[in-house]
């Protein structure tokens, strides 16, 4: 079933992709006979055929996800999205501190250990990454301190 749902969805994507290739994509003029549209056209057809093949002969039945696992994964994704959203506004140190502490706590670390881990990762990560290796990391509000 899982394979069928997945290939069904991918088939829709392929059709959308193909429709764009056959209708929207066009150059005012071009020097090669293929143009920007031929390659995507071929890909959309191959992809759609593969999806149909998979619909006909799926081999993975279920994703084996329990309710508890799905909840945990949703929490993980929310945390990751929050980390990405706060990465620039809060800066690397604070965003990383929060993300690491909360995730470590959820994954079973004690409150104290999670906090220490968060603080250490935030500060050491920035120290090594931005100061020593000169990587481009956002300083955020802490910029004033530097």
């Amino acid at each position: 079933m899982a394979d069928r749902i997945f290939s069904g969805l991918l088939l829709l994507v392929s059709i959308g992709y193909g429709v764009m290739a056959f209708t929207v994509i066009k150059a005012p003029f071009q020097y090669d006979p293929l143009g920007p549209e031929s390659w995507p056209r071929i890909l959309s057809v191959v992809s759609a055929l593969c999806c149909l093949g998979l619909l006909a002969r799926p081999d993975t039945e279920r994703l084996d996800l329990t309710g508890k696992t799905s909840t945990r994964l949703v929490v993980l994704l929310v945390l990751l999205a929050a980390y990405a959203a706060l990465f620039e506004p809060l800066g690397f140190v604070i965003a990383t501190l929060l993300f690491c502490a909360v995730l470590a706590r959820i994954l079973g670390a004690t409150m104290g250990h999670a906090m220490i881990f968060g603080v250490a990762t935030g500060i050491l990560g920035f120290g090594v990454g931005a100061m020593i290796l000169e990587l481009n990391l956002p300083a955020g509000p802490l910029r004033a301190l530097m």
Partner: protein
Amino acid sequence: MTDVLSGLEAGFAVALLPLNLALVMGGCFVGTLIGALPGIGPINGVAILLPIAYGLGLPPESALILLAGIYYGAEYGGRISSILLNVPGDAGAVMTTLDGNPMAKRGEAGRALSLSAVASFCGGTAAVILMTLFGPLLASFAVKFNPSNYVALMVFAFASLASLVGKNPIKTLLGAVIGLMLATIGIDANTGVARYDFGVPDLLAGIDFLVVVIGLFGMAELIHLVEQQVTGKFTILPIGKSFVSMADLMATKWTILRSSLIGFFIGVLPGTGASVASAVAYGTEKRLASDGDTFGTGNPKGLAAPEAANNAAAGGAMVPMLTLGIPGSGTTAILLGALLLFNVTPGPMMFQTRPEIAWGLIASMYIGNVALLVINLPLVGLFARMLTIPQRYLIPLIAVLAFIGVYSVVGNPFDLFMIIGLGIFGWVLRKLHFSLAPIILGFVLGGLFEDNLRRALSISGGDWSILVADANSLVLYTLALLVVAVPLVLSRRKRMALDTEA
């Protein structure tokens, strides 16, 4: 030949000065650390450290030796997180995950790390030797490699990758097509028309390769680890004190040699680098190996092949830069910029006007490879200990490293969301038993294939016969045919032999 020897002698005199020796060692060490960070590879390492190297006020040959050390070090370091975490350290280390990580999961992290260090050393050293002997000759061959030859090379690459077909060929093909489709996003290089950007400016340039790799591999691995932790499937990895054995080396020697050659030649060509080289080497070795069916489950040959190839490619990429002044890859373009920064113009004249720089740099590559082996082997135990970090800390750390890698290279928070989205996609694909490697390879090879095909057809004015018009292409098509056909013939012959015995 005497020119080469005397040049090399003078070069070693420069490279063996205590300061330069210290710089190459230091560069290799820092480079290994940078390369070990997921996502940050040689190109970023060199770009980031160039201002520092310049700021130190070193003489040009010393600064270049430092940068070359960082370049090589980063290429070595890429394998570490591939093997230990299943997260490629950089673009060239994607194939390293396929057999490296299963070895680590079996408790052979030390063996995998040390074997790959030796393979890297052999690849790197073979590349420098070939460069010393045939550099200028190869460079003139490389520029003659025209768009239709690239098309043939891509056909060869796909043919050698046909060996990656897993249990379900449709899933493998679909994976490759997904990769090819992802590669069409963004502005078309020929006509300047935007494709599949949906009005999002961040998509105009297409999706960065790094973002695809970190997303599909790194973030998917992260989600997978969390899932395993919840379901209690996760078991603490055994950390044996394993190390590469003489038997391992004997078993992989031909793999390493062939992969070094493949990697070097692909590296010399402008436009193709470590990622294409390691993919082709892996595919070819899987085809040729008698135990090819165990590739992907922790076969040492499957680990040695991409590592020898990507380091050889790193060396090969230096050839057109040094001899012709044409950068064959992003990293060598930055090294070229560094040369210009020191008022050194690369090209054939450099060997006459500034021999201390040209030969000093080449000599430092010999030394750098030895230095990397010496630095890396003792550290194997230390790196392997990374696996003993408890999951509750390791999982957040992987996310942080992935974010650092993507943000510091691309500098755009949009891509942080991209890796999360691709991570979910990659995790679903894994659950459905898709192999991720074909997607990555489709993505790498797709753009090269389409652009060069259309370039070739523009050159010929639409005449398709240009694709088979010269010897280079024909040789590559023949090789492609062989790489597909030979294993079939061999296995049939084996079967027939078994039948007659019975």
